[in-house]
């Protein structure tokens, strides 16, 4: 596949991630911060997010499995996940966390368990989507091309 085709594929794929709500404008902020001094900044930050979110999701699973659930602790973990997901622009994960916090406030254990399942799914989905995006970028760079500038005009 020639570079121009790969770049168009990258543009279409990136656009779909925003239209489907996986990413929001905050992700573009990360891309703006990437430069020649830190060419892998976005990949590194996103990797950190998935490392940290993996631990948080495990902590949430344990916390919700207790006989007497400490909803304050659950809420604290969800608040942290909400903050970090919003910092990388993982919009659907963030939105799940907002719903999750409401359920914590209601001390709705069944609702919280359903939400936990949903958050795990959304984290998995956005992880796969971003891995595909980064693979496309690597292919473009390997072919001697550059990553197009993306603006939110849709």
């Amino acid at each position: 596949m020639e570079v121009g085709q790969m770049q168009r594929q990258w543009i279409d794929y990136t656009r779909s991630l925003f239209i489907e709500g996986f990413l929001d404008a905050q992700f573009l902020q990360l891309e703006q911060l990437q430069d020649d001094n830190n060419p892998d900044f976005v990949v590194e930050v996103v990797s950190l997010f998935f490392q940290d979110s993996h631990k948080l999701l495990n902590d949430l699973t344990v916390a919700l499995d207790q006989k007497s659930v400490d909803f304050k602790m659950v809420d604290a973990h969800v608040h942290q996940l909400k903050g970090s997901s919003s910092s990388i622009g993982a919009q659907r994960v963030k939105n799940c966390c907002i719903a999750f916090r409401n359920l914590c406030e209601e001390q709705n254990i069944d609702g919280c368990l359903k939400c936990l399942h949903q958050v795990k799914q959304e984290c998995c989905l956005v992880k796969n989507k971003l891995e595909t995006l980064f693979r496309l970028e690597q292919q473009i760079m390997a072919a001697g091309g550059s990553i197009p500038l993306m603006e939110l005009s849709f």
Partner: protein
Amino acid sequence: MDSHKLTALVVDDDRMVRIIHGKMLNSVGVKNQVVQNGKEAINVHLSGQTFDLILMDLDMPIMNGIEAIKELRSMGICSTIAGVSARSMESHIQEFMEAGLDEYLEKPLNISKLTSFIHKFYVTN
């Protein structure tokens, strides 16, 4: 004052947020340091360092943002402090402001919010 002459301290328990906020400050020419909680922020000041700006997270272990700001102000630290948090409830923001903040910035932080904050308190000549 030109933002390139400013210094900042980023206080956040989330390492990813420390990296992002540090990079944002670098991108607008503000030299910065990062620490993980309010206690470390106090210790950095006790070691003799001062900063023009402090970006202070609210929820942190060991010492949270509210406790840290109260302590810094009681130490006579006059830095411009922005509380940075994902919380949006009025009551939480009010408590944070009353601790001694100059500004509250809701997460996620972006370059636009950051430069507006810097320009508000440090007007370029």
